[in-house]
């Protein structure tokens, strides 16, 4: 049985990505964090989603091709 300030796994999972995005109110965030300290299944899922978010973030950085480097240099030289 859960106490009034405890939440169930289903609720944690339904709010997990909002939580990881920082899009959740303080009270819910604290409830989720308490739950993650005690529940290995939800903790594993949170770690997995965090790692996946990290991998997605990494593809937002890429060395530009030489053609763009030349084009940008020419542009900035005109400023």
């Amino acid at each position: 049985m859960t106490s009034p300030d405890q939440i169930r796994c289903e609720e944690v999972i339904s709010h997990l990505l909002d939580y990881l995005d920082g899009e959740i109110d303080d009270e819910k965030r604290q409830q989720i964090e308490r739950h993650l300290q005690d529940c290995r299944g939800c903790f594993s899922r949170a770690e997995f989603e965090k790692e996946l978010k990290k991998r997605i973030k990494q593809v937002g950085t890429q060395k530009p091709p030489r053609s763009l480097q030349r084009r940008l240099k020419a542009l900035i030289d005109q400023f």
Partner: protein
Amino acid sequence: MGNHVDDCRFFRAEFERLTDRLYGIALRLTGNSAAAEDLVSEAVVKAWRNLGQLNDRRSFPKWMLRILTNTFVSDCRKARQEPTIVIEDEGEEQFSLFEQLHQPFLLWWGNPERDLISKLVREDVERALDNLPDGLRAVVVMVEIEGYSYAEVAATLGIPIGTVRSRLNRARSMLQRALWRQAREAGLTTAA
């Protein structure tokens, strides 16, 4: 705004540090390298013209990335390729990669979900992301790569926050399903 020489020096130095991020984000937003090159070039010109409006120069990276994204959104609107237009609901069930992989009884002996993440290469993630419909991909890029809040995405795209949330959920589900398919095709997982 400082004098022209100082402004040029500042802009050049800041821009140089940011080039890989600008191109990477442009590539993910547009889905192709020619369009990404045009987008970065257009954003650079806009940023230079508006440099005087940047009060706190320490916030140049964030400001510059906003210009890039706003330029993308406004170019899409001009071309009537509204990045916000997506089919709202295809009745597709939410898909979770974790649920496909996780095996609770293996907790102490193995971790299939961690194994899969460690086997994914950059190209896997790029392919899954680039294959999302434009309107969904834009939301993922803004939130996951650029770190926009849902409210900022809503303001940029002119849609309600609830719609941002539902598009993000749908995009993540499609992305994870694509990664799952790719992983199975490449033999990266033996899970059924």
